């Protein structure tokens, strides 16, 4: 058995166990961390398939950013796992049906005409073959327009999400750095010369004697 095969079985076993623990772990933070572990092992599996760009992008995007934000939220919420589990048996038939349907669809697609074993690209690429370069060439030449449209849609989604949650508070006392830097002395204090509004008390002159 090749060493790569041993690695494959190790990574797949850890992936399956971690994925199972995601749905069985009692603590939501543990579940999220098991999901991170599963992502990591899937990245390792992709690396074995010589898809280094996808593997590293998975770690960078999902492990490095998405799951951190996910944990950020999960850690701050007090999630009662017992209450979430209450409807388990009622929802099981529907959930099981959806799950089976998904497994069936994936089996149909993966064993079909396009993704069958015979249609896979040859595994042994030349040593200087760069997955990243090939992917970039395709994305920025043949699929330039779909790629640009997808990125614009994502940008719109970001702006929409920000605008939906943004609310300007009236009582906000946050300072703006540029205003602070641009401030002049005369903005803060103004010296005015004016006549006294009330006459100074006559007794003030005698104050020194009393003391």
């Amino acid at each position, binding site marked *: 058995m090749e060493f790569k095969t041993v690695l494959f079985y190790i990574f797949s076993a850890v992936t399956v166990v971690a994925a199972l623990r995601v749905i069985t772990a009692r603590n939501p933070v543990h579940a999220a961390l098991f999901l991170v572990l599963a992502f990591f092992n899937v990245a390792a599996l992709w690396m074995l398939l010589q898809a280094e760009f996808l593997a590293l992008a998975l770690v960078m995007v999902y492990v*490095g*950013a998405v799951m951190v934000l996910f944990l950020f939220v999960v*850690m701050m919420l007090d999630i009662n796992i017992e209450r979430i589990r209450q409807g388990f048996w009622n929802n099981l038939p529907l959930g099981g049906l959806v799950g089976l349907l998904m497994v069936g669809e994936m089996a149909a697609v993966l064993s079909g005409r396009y993704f069958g074993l015979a249609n896979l690209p040859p595994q042994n690429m030349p040593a200087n073959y760069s997955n990243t370069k090939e992917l970039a060439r395709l994305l920025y030449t043949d699929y330039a327009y779909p790629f640009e449209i997808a990125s614009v849609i994502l940008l719109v989604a970001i702006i929409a999400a920000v605008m939906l949650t943004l609310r300007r508070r009236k009582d906000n006392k946050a300072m703006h750095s540029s205003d602070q830097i641009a401030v002049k002395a005369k903005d803060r204090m103004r010296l005015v010369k004016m006549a006294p509004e009330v006459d100074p008390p006559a007794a003030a002159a005698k104050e020194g004697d009393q003391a």
Partner: protein
Amino acid sequence: MEATVLPFVEGLLGSIWPTVRPVWPLIWTLLKIVLILAPLLLTVAYLTFWERKIIGWMQVRIGPNRVGPWGLLQPIADGLKLFLKEVIFPTASDKKLFVLGPIMAIAPALAAWAVIPFSPGWALANVDAGVLYLLAVSSVGVYGIIIAGWASNSKYPFFGAMRASAQMISYEVSMGLGLITVLMVSSSLNLTEIVGAQSKGMFAGMGVGFLSWNWLPLLPMFAVYLISGVAETNRAPFDVVEGESEIVAGHMVEYSGMSFAMFFLAEYANMILISAMVSVFFLGGWLSPIGFLPDGFHWMAAKMAAILFFFLWIRATFPRYRYDQIMRLGWKVFVPLTLVWILVVGVWMMSPLTIWK
């Protein structure tokens, strides 16, 4: 380097060489890992000493000078002390994650060194996607802090973890975008080739190679990358994650002894890593600044030392940023600046004025 070592090893082992031969790649890789990590950890130890000395001098103090000649054994004494201290587990902590936290902090800090080239051909793994690997591994570093902060089950560590996750993710964006211009001008993801691309150019031909390095044409990105690097390692003036005056020590509050030392090691290993990355991406790695001087690892070491001094210098100089100012700098200054500069470099490369061919 392997070609020079191999005959020597063969001669040394003599008749038992054929039995060693199948596992030789494993031995050789492990040897290289030790060759990288042992000096690294020694550098980490003496960086802490150097930091205390530098800050001492800048504040007109003497700094550590009691242990050994000129205080040179201070880091050894500190390490020994931390090693002998008890690791205390808070009663309400999540024990398994409490142990996992420091491990997750130090593992990426050391793993990232696998692709750093020290000299032509002197890298543990000279891979094509080296930059991607660095970005991926360094983005995992935040887990150590988050896990530690949550597992401690205590207020200050949790605040530290929340601040860390927000800050490190924000500055990763500007670091990544800053790197894109470097990738554009060197048209490679391989770190050795990125250094190689900086050895060519008009000024390199004139014998003043240091003007051909990426820092000059990409000066705004150099500044953004360096400052983001400081923020990414949670060093002063961006050290709100630990912020002594606000949240004591952030995620490290509940840690003691060796488990605390591992966070400490990770922070300094990350500092050295950032300085290595800056010198590879912007300062020409092992290339010599002047044409007639030979290239070599000593140049890279000198550049890294200069950047590390910058880290310590700004720690002694600047007051800590307020949290909203950190976020503002990251998102409202650095990200737009990098986006604009990507466009500028793209247009520059396509124009007849291009200096990259």
